[in-house]
């Protein structure tokens, strides 16, 4: 019998690159040290030891806004570079489509300022959508009830965001169906669950009736029940039982922090949980899980750097920053 090593060598090149790049990941001590810095120049000097060294020159004038763009650019450049070397782009697209849907959100509002790098939806398609030509509107968007009933035209922009969120979640589900990796499937399942909870929780705090989520976020495959149940329950105290599983427990723990921002804490804890889960992929010699785990680690690192650097430039309390640090890859 031939040993089962299908696709192994195909992923070898990109995973070889990742083996080297992983050596640049920063430990938690680095971030704690960065938080203790007083001057922006010292922070910039420390950033020379990170993935950002090619993007930042010491001595230049730096503002928080510049940094935010740099972190995003660094992640996107790396993701696109790895995408070119991957036999299947799915593990990379999983991270990049969020940008596409942010651009799409502008396009359906007839705005042409697409600030995020496009991956699956080209700027030409987005421009055409912004100009009212819906021929190339993604299938995931056209599956929304609002599109199919024609309700979408003239709808409130806030509700349009919910429809785009629904399309994004349906795209994640498509990825889940396309991949054979159990790790990536599980990640997508939990990511969609947490995304729905956060979106509905935020909506409830803003006073948006939850029935709109039933109406505009759906259909999201097997998650329709979750959306319906959360919307119907009315009381957030019942959500833990409805969500269930690990995410339900994280939700319960986070909702205890009423005096702080429980939604951010939930987001942080879910991210930490998912990072720990995905880290198993880092032990694979070559395969899609390795790429996926690396990109999740890089995204986490960029989010930590963004939090600390912009937080320190704006003199945010150090204890607050320490509490909001996400778990590092190394």
């Amino acid at each position, binding site marked *: 019998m031939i*040993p089962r090593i299908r696709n192994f060598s195909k992923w070898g090149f990109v995973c070889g690159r990742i083996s080297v790049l992983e050596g640049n990941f920063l430990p938690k001590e680095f971030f704690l040290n960065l938080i203790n810095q007083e001057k922006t120049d010292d922070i910039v000097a420390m950033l020379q030891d990170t993935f950002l060294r090619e993007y930042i020159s010491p001595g230049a004038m730096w503002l928080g806004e510049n940094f935010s763009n740099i972190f995003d650019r660094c992640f996107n450049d790396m993701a696109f570079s790895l995408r070119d070397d991957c036999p299947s782009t799915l593990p990379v697209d999983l991270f990049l489509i969020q940008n596409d849907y942010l651009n799409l959100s502008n396009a359906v509002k007839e705005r042409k300022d697409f600030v995020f790098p496009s991956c699956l939806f080209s700027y030409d398609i987005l421009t055409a959508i912004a100009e009212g030509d819906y021929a190339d509107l993604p299938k995931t968007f056209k599956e929304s009830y609002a599109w199919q009933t024609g309700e979408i035209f003239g709808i409130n922009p806030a509700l349009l965001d919910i429809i785009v969120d629904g399309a994004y979640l349906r795209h994640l589900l498509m990825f889940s169906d396309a991949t054979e990796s159990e790790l990536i499937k599980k990640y997508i399942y939990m990511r969609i669950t947490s995304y729905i909870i956060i979106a509905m929780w935020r909506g409830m705090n803003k006073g948006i009736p939850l029935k709109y989520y039933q109406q505009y976020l759906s259909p999201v495959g097997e998650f329709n029940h979750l959306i319906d149940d959360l919307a119907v329950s009315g009381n957030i105290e019942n959500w833990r039982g409805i969500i269930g599983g690990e995410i339900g427990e994280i939700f319960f723990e986070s909702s205890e922090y009423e005096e702080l921002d429980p939604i951010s804490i939930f987001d942080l804890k879910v991210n930490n949980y998912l990072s720990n889960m995905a880290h198993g992929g880092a032990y694979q010699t*070559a395969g899609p899980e390795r790429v996926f785990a690396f990109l999740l680690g890089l995204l986490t690192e960029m989010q930590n750097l963004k939090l600390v650097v912009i937080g320190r430039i704006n003199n945010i309390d150090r204890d607050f920053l320490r509490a909001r640090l996400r778990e590092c890859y190394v």
Partner: protein
Amino acid sequence: MSPEWIEIGRGLCYAGAGLAFGLAGAGSAWGISIAAHQCAGVLREKPELFGRMLVMIALPGTQGFYGFIAAILIMTQTGLIGGSTIKISLGTGLAMFFIGLGCGIAQFISAIKQGEASAAGISLIARRPESAGRAILFPAFVETYAVVGLLATVLFIIFLTQPVVLKFLG
């Protein structure tokens, strides 16, 4: 023993030799390819590691040579090379065929697995170049069984072509 049986016996010997070399060569090519993909990715980021990587890529290639040695030995001992006139019975031919097949399978699988072990070692060297000495041990352990496979093949071939054994096998 009829000449037809002798011919079948010889044919089986050569088929065994072909399988020993063919499977071992295919396994080596496959194993090297696995290690080379990983290595190329590492060199894309750190070209200075080429020297340390070279041995890791070359290791799965040894099985091809082992298969070649086994095939040559079968051919010399049975008279295809060297023109000896020993009589190969059907029993001897079958024995040689399965020795060649066994050798080929051992080399084929060990070469692929060694390629995977080399790829893992390459990952380790990429992260910690100072661990190159330790990383080479992983594929070297796999090599042990390729060598044991070759050794067993050589002993069997020599034993089976002794006059007393040939007489016993008919």
